[in-house]
């Protein structure tokens, strides 16, 4: 893995080979917001996120340390599941990354910090054999993100994707049936080709699946 760079709000930030901000002095709020979206926090950073991030920044900048995940949660009165809900990719790969603490600093402070595994959550969504969501009511943005992983979308899910997904969901909720592909194109004012570009896996296995609709038999 080579050092990478990301652009948030028109500004470029350089990252180390583990995807952490480096050098850390580049950190600002735009970075935090941008990285948060990249790490599955779709609604943007809330007050709860910021409270935790500020705690980490304070530890990092003033005390020159990073606490391990359990002490950090204890200090902030956060349950582990609450932390996971706030930062879906975990503490070190989520919160610390957004707070702009660089990997080398974390490792040198306490090697075991970097031993934290990808957060162990119960699988959030139950899917059938074909990968379709079993219960439409349990859908959230993370499910759509999970579905499109591996599609190679250059910018991930864009506003246009979300518009299609929302249309599908509203329509499914109101009519209890899956709209036809032509309904979707008409509603969005796009052609089949454009839809195909947005959802390279196809209409049913791509768009409908990401929207959490069941498999049409």
């Amino acid at each position, binding site marked *: 893995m080579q050092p990478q760079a990301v652009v948030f709000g028109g500004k470029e930030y350089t990252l180390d080979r583990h995807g952490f901000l480096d050098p850390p002095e580049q950190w600002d709020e735009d970075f935090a917001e941008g990285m948060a979206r990249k790490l599955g926090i779709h609604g943007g950073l809330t007050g709860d996120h910021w409270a935790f991030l500020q705690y980490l920044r304070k530890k990092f900048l003033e005390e020159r340390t990073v606490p391990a995940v*359990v002490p950090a949660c*204890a200090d902030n009165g956060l349950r582990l599941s609450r932390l*996971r809900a706030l930062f879906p990719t975990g503490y070190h790969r989520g919160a610390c990354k957004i707070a702009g603490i660089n990997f080398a600093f974390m490792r040198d402070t306490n090697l*075991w910090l970097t031993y934290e595994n990808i957060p*162990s959550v119960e699988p959030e969504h139950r899917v059938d054999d074909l990968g379709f969501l079993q219960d439409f009511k349990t859908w959230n943005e993370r499910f759509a993100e999970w579905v499109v992983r591996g599609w190679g979308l250059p910018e991930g899910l864009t506003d246009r994707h979300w518009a299609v997904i929302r249309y599908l969901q509203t329509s499914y909720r109101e009519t209890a049936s899956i709209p036809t592909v032509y309904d979707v194109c008409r509603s969005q004012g796009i052609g089949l080709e454009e839809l195909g570009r947005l959802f390279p896996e196809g209409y049913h296995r791509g768009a409908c699946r990401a929207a959490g609709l069941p498999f049409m038999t």
Partner: protein
Amino acid sequence: MAQDTAHVGAGPATKRPEVVRAKESPVVDPEQVIRAITAIDGGPRVLKLYMEMCARCGTCASQCPVYYGKAEKKYNPVERSDLIRDIYKKHCTTTGKLLGALVGARDYRDGELEAWAEHFYTCTGCRRCATYCPMGIDNSVIARKGRAILEAAGMTPDTMQKVVRISLETGNTDGASPEAFKAAIEFLEEEMKEEHGVDIKIPVDVVGADYFYVPPSGDVLVNPEATTGVAKVFYALGLQDRWTMSSHYFDGANYGLFTGNDADMKADNKPYVEEAKRLGCKVLFMGECGHAYRIMKMMMEPARWWGDLPFTIMNCMEFTAEQIKAGKLQFDKSKNPQPVTYHDPCNFGRSCDIVEEPRIILKASCQDFREMYPNRGENWCCGGGGGLSAMDDIHEFRMTVSGVKKMEQVRATGAKYVAAACSNCKRQLAQLMEYYKEDIAVGGVHDMLSRSILINGKAAKRVDYT
């Protein structure tokens, strides 16, 4: 609660000792290296045989995870072992003395040690070669000898030196204070209270408890589910007053094994035995850490480092599996519906024969358990063995050379969760998944148990904050 535990974060940072780095260019006395190698002649017979028996058939290369990842000469176990073997022949065997280069014998070359530092830290010490070698040669033992020579010359990689130093000074490799540890335990008890609605204790410093639990590094502060899993097993069996942890010694890691420094390894080991005696336990109850268990069970105990022991040594997975077989634990498998596979850590699979126990636990607690092939004693190393997992300066090597085979094996199972009973394996595996952008979670064995075990008839229920 926030006030109760407000002091937690303050502990570790202040206690961390300064790391003394190796000198920039250590002065290496060639005589010292040669003396260390000729000493093999008078040492344990097995290592002496390894020096003399190699038939150079190449079987080890075909079974080595590093050589599989990149078929370069320097990654061939024979070539690596020959660094020492050739010098040994020159000084200690008749043919070597008489025929020299004709039989592969050669003398130590000045400045060679610099290159050794790379070579001996590209062996993961997994011992897979030893399983297949027709002569039974264990190249990991030779590699450890090489590391011991590097250690004596002050050329052990910084990360390794640092882990050993912190462990010797604080008793734990993460350097956390007893107060920080206790606060973390309190936090885990609150977690379990929320999951099950009952008080499940994690006893600390209880003298007279039967079981003294020693988890691997980080399992309390960083990957806490393994510890809550063990606590739930004791609770479900009605043994929650019969076990304890220590607030001073809660980390089985012993990197002396990896640096080749026997004195450090013993010095790191002793406090745990002393603590077990102080607590008066009947069973030294080791956690999901391959090398820690191996040192205790396969080295310290049979070699009688500290004489007779007033306790037995057991691994937590043996204990839990026994209870499952006896029908004493119940599970709700639907809590773990995703396909799960088990990676046999080399130290458990090949060196300690703990292979069925983790499978019994995972099959009891998961709906869809899948084997990866080959497995058990023949499993491939994760690519981070021998302490390599902690070394980030060779991250690229671990990802694109030593870990290649493991990644292929995991992919072939289709699993979404890889369980490994070893912190080093877990770190390497998690980094592999990140590197190859695989959506596969990595964790421990008791972690899965913790999510599905029934306490008073009910599995853990987590508040859904989403």
